[in-house]
């Protein structure tokens, strides 16, 4: 489409592949990523990291490092313990113990790469030189390198207060599982496992803590997916003021007290229902293991209340995250503590070795699934036993335990099950920290969709037939998943499957299969279908964990400035999703202005609305976009009201076309936004504030719903090399009305590419001693343009009853792909007797499965 059409302002921008607003700076080298920030006099940081997977720190000698050229300071775990609080448990749930840990390790290391000391120097080179002068006396402990070792009786506990290395053990049961299993024709069971993977954004993590020498105020420039979360956790964990002083400050400052009381009242009244559902068994389970949190919580709470000045967190451009930058890095807190202590600005940019070691890992799960099935292909009940390898430290805020809750709810997928039971366990091992990675719960889809193919093969049915037979369709609606959440018309998985089946020619494929086999190639086809909560129905979060539905809120603020320009303020923190373009499309359509009249304000906690979620969880479209839509709509209403007075007309008769606000049919006597805004500003007599200014809290209630998709993958396996080629890959997805098709397609394709990497290339491997094996891109293989095929994306746009219909799409590609690919591989190798039970299928494993080489 032409540039003229893109900016017509006649409405209708939503739905168009409008070219990206972000590109002008990003394609010319003028972006501003955290590594590009250099405050005057900034010092540089480097972390000393443990070479041992598991060891006691007997002593640290930093004398020589402190005296080294250019070194300003060296901090150890003991310094950090004195000046910061440990990371608190974010979510306390029945059956869960969350260990508390500091930003630097204090007396024990729990993984290779565990930070034990921080050097601050005049340059990064000098800081790294000094690392080599630090002497650490380690007393090695037996490493816990695998899930099996962690579950074994007598494994060396990572955390003294835990029950061995089992940190979470909880079973959820829905329906009479035993009865349905007993009455079904047969039970099919398989144990599936997924290797450790890593998010690996092209930009590593990084933080620049800028200290205002006059006031001590911190401005934190950080590659974070959530600016407000980072702001509050930094304030909370670095608050050193004593509890008594904080309490006194709080009680004697009437304004602060008043603000707190009214904010608390507002929070309680807005979330009354959700709060009532909170389960006290969670905190009780935590406190039974470890009471130290009470003291920290009191000091953190009082410290926050007594604080006059919170850090400002800023970010402009971020080089990807895929969940990893939504976690608060221990390094972030250590750096802030160091900057506060020194009163100097400090910069740290993670290197790739650090990122592959301590930048977050994911997905290592072992899942045993049993499906009770009748001979006609009806899947009646399911049992699952899930174990997640959390690694050495709990992710903050979202870690393995919450992920298991989402897996629990979503496990039955888009199918009718009479009953379901799942035992979820989380174990600690001496490996990198488990964090959310794009569709963090995705292995429920992988395990279920893999199992459905196994069921189909055992019953002698086609995988598509088993899916179609069991899938919830419109005739069942409204209904609910066996795990609780409401299923409405947006759960269109069956339509995506039906459409996908129309797009493939299975007869032609069977002919190709025969031809390929003649030349040593095995062809296969794999299907995977799923729905995801993006944002999910109103009862979704309470099904995940009672009392968490309050997480489904998002604010947006729309202003019209006196000069007529439009600003949209969001707590979202774009890192590749093109919010500046899509939110401008949404707002411009609502306001009847051109795309370029709208500017997005983000990445600055002093200016943006509060929200701890940042960008993640496929919330940007439905919640962020919904909030933008409603706040812009409210501003339009007020602008029209004002214009109607100026034009001496009824508000109902006013229309806005291309920024011209006029009585319908009389565009020649219209007013511009600037004219209406300046009139409103003159009337208000306050030149410092925007004449139109509306903040809307969007809760998603009644709107939104599910995003769905079906993936179909074709594979061509060379039995000589074990290489898997993907001659065709197609996705039929439904995220409701598409704001920008090119951007949605990009999200889907990027997710599928990561899924291809997950199955065929990527492995955050550890040896038996807990040594990380993949520390460079020569070992951790990110697929290139040679490995990723073209991916067809087809859209279905199911509308819901709600006014805001945008649904999330960021995670879906990655959710469906591993299942579709592994199903295709099994389909290709089944004639050779292969059964695929692992997600990771590098060439050697393919050749083993095909019987070409011996597994040992």
């Amino acid at each position: 489409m032409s540039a003229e059409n893109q900016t017509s302002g006649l409405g209708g921008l939503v739905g168009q592949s409008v070219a990206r607003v972000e590109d002008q700076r990003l394609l010319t080298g003028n972006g501003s990523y955290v590594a590009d920030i250099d405050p005057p006099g900034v010092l540089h940081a480097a972390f000393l990291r443990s070479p041992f997977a598991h060891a006691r720190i007997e002593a640290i000698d930093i004398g020589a490092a402190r005296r080294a050229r250019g070194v300003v300071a060296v901090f150890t775990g003991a310094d950090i313990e004195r000046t910061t609080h440990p990371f608190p448990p974010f979510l306390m749930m029945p059956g869960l113990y969350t260990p508390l840990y500091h930003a630097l390790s204090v007396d024990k290391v729990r993984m290779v790469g565990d930070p034990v000391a921080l050097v601050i120097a005049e340059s990064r080179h000098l800081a790294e030189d000094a690392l080599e002068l630090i002497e650490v006396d380690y007393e090695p402990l037996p490493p816990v390198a695998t899930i099996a070792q962690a579950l074994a009786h007598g494994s060396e506990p990572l955390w003294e207060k835990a029950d061995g290395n089992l940190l979470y053990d909880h079973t959820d049961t829905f329906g009479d599982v035993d009865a349905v299993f007993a009455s079904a024709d047969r039970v099919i069971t398989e144990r599936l496992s997924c290797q450790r993977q890593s998010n690996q954004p092209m930009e590593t993590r990084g933080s620049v803590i800028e200290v205002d020498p006059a006031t001590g105020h911190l401005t934190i420039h950080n590659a974070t997916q959530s600016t407000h979360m980072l702001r509050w956790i930094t304030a909370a964990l670095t608050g050193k003021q004593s509890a008594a002083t904080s309490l006194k400050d709080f009680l004697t400052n009437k304004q602060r007290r008043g603000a707190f009381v009214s904010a608390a009242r507002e929070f309680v009244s807005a979330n009354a229902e959700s709060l009532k559902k909170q389960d006290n068994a969670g905190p009780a389970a935590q406190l039974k293991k470890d009471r130290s949190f009470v003291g920290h919580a009191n000091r953190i709470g009082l410290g926050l209340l007594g604080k006059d000045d919170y850090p400002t967190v800023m970010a402009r451009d971020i080089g990807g995250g895929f969940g990893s930058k939504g976690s608060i890095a221990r390094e972030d807190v250590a750096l802030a503590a160091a900057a506060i202590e020194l009163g100097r600005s400090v910069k740290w940019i993670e290197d790739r070795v650090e990122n592959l070691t301590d930048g977050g890992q994911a997905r290592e799960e072992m899942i045993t699934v049993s499906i009770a099935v009748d001979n006609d292909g009806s899947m009646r009940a399911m049992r699952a036993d899930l174990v997640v390898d959390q690694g050495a430290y709990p992710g903050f805020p979202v870690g393995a335990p919450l992920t298991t809750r989402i897996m629990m709810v979503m496990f039955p997928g888009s199918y009718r099950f009479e009953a379901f039971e799942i035992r979820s366990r989380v174990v600690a091992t001496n490996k990198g920290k488990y964090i959310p990675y794009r569709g963090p719960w995705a292995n429920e889809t992988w395990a279920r969709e893999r199992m459905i193919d196994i069921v189909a093969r055992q019953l002698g049915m086609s995988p598509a037939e088993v899916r179609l037979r069991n899938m919830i369709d419109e005739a069942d609606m409204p209904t609910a998943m066996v795990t609780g959440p409401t299923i409405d018309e947006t759960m269109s998985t069956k339509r995506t499957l039906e459409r996908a089946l129309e797009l493939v020619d299975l007869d032609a494929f069977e002919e190709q299969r025969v031809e390929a086999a003649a030349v040593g190639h095995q062809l296969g086809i794999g299907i995977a279908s799923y729905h995801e909560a993006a944002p999910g129905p109103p009862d979704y979060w309470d099904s995940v964990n009672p009392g968490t539905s309050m997480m489904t809120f998002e604010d947006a603020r729309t202003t019209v400035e006196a000069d007529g320009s439009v600003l949209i303020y969001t707590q979202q923190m774009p890192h590749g999703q093109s919010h500046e373009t899509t939110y401008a499309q949404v707002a411009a359509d609502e306001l009847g202005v051109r795309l370029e009249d709208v500017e997005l304000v983000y990445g600055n906690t002093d200016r943006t609305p509060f929200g701890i979620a940042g960008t993640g969880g496929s919330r940007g479209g439905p919640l962020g976009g919904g909030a933008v839509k409603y706040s812009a709509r409210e501003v339009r209403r007020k602008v029209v009201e004002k214009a109607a007075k100026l034009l001496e007309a009824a508000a109902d008769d006013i229309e806005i076309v291309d920024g011209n606000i006029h009585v319908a049919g009389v565009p020649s006597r219209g007013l511009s936004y600037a004219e209406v805004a300046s009139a409103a500003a003159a009337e208000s007599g306050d030149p410092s504030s925007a004449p139109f200014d509306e903040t809307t809290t969007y809760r998603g209630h009644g709107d939104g719903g599910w995003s769905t998709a079906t993936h179909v993958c074709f594979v061509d396996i060379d039995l000589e090399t074990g290489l898997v080629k993907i001659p065709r890959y197609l996705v039929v997805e439904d995220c409701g009305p598409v704001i920008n098709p090119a951007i949605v397609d990009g999200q889907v394709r990027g997710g599928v590419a990561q899924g291809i990497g997950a199955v065929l290339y990527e492995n955050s491997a550890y040896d038996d001693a807990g040594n990380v094996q993949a520390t460079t891109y020569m070992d951790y293989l990110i697929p290139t343009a040679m490995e990723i095929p073209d991916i067809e994306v087809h859209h279905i746009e199911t509308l819901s009853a709600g006014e805001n219909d945008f649904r999330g799409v960021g995670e879906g590609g990655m959710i469906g792909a591993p299942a579709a690919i592994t199903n295709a591989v099994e389909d290709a190798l089944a004639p050779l007797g292969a059964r695929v039970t692992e997600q990771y299928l590098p060439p050697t494993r393919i050749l083993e499965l095909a019987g070409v080489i011996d597994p040992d």
Partner: protein
Amino acid sequence: MSTIPIDGAATVTFTVNGASVATEVETRRMLSDVIREDVGLTGTHLGCEHGVCGACTVLIDGQPARSCLMLAVQADGADITTIEGLADGDRLHAVQQAMHDSHSFQCAFCAPGFLMSTVALLAENPNPTRDQIRAELSGNLCRCTGYQSIIAGVETAVELLARSGGGERGGA
């Protein structure tokens, strides 16, 4: 060639985007560090610092090179082009324009490397096949897009350059 001390400093002289630079650098510093920190051009990005991701790609005398693997002193006398050297004021280079038109990038951290590799590719082979594009760009990693949009961008660039009569704004 004179001997350069391992941990000392040396004066290097090169041009960056046509401007002469003469600066004293620690001999252990990489060209990427000097471009970013001393010359102040932060468009050249560091993704892995071990020569795999390609985000740091610049043109050295017209040839693509990993500035993270090259010591600054090795660039003495070189003619260097970085991402900042492509556009002509507000007017995008044909490759930049094509990538914009094609929605090629998302977070765009990798974009400078892809753009420089593409400029070098099209200078050598103005009409590459899709397979050649995939092979030539396999030295650059992107984690966001799945590459399809970037390859489409290269193909669009081929068209834009052909329409503008070949070489115009195509070279570096």
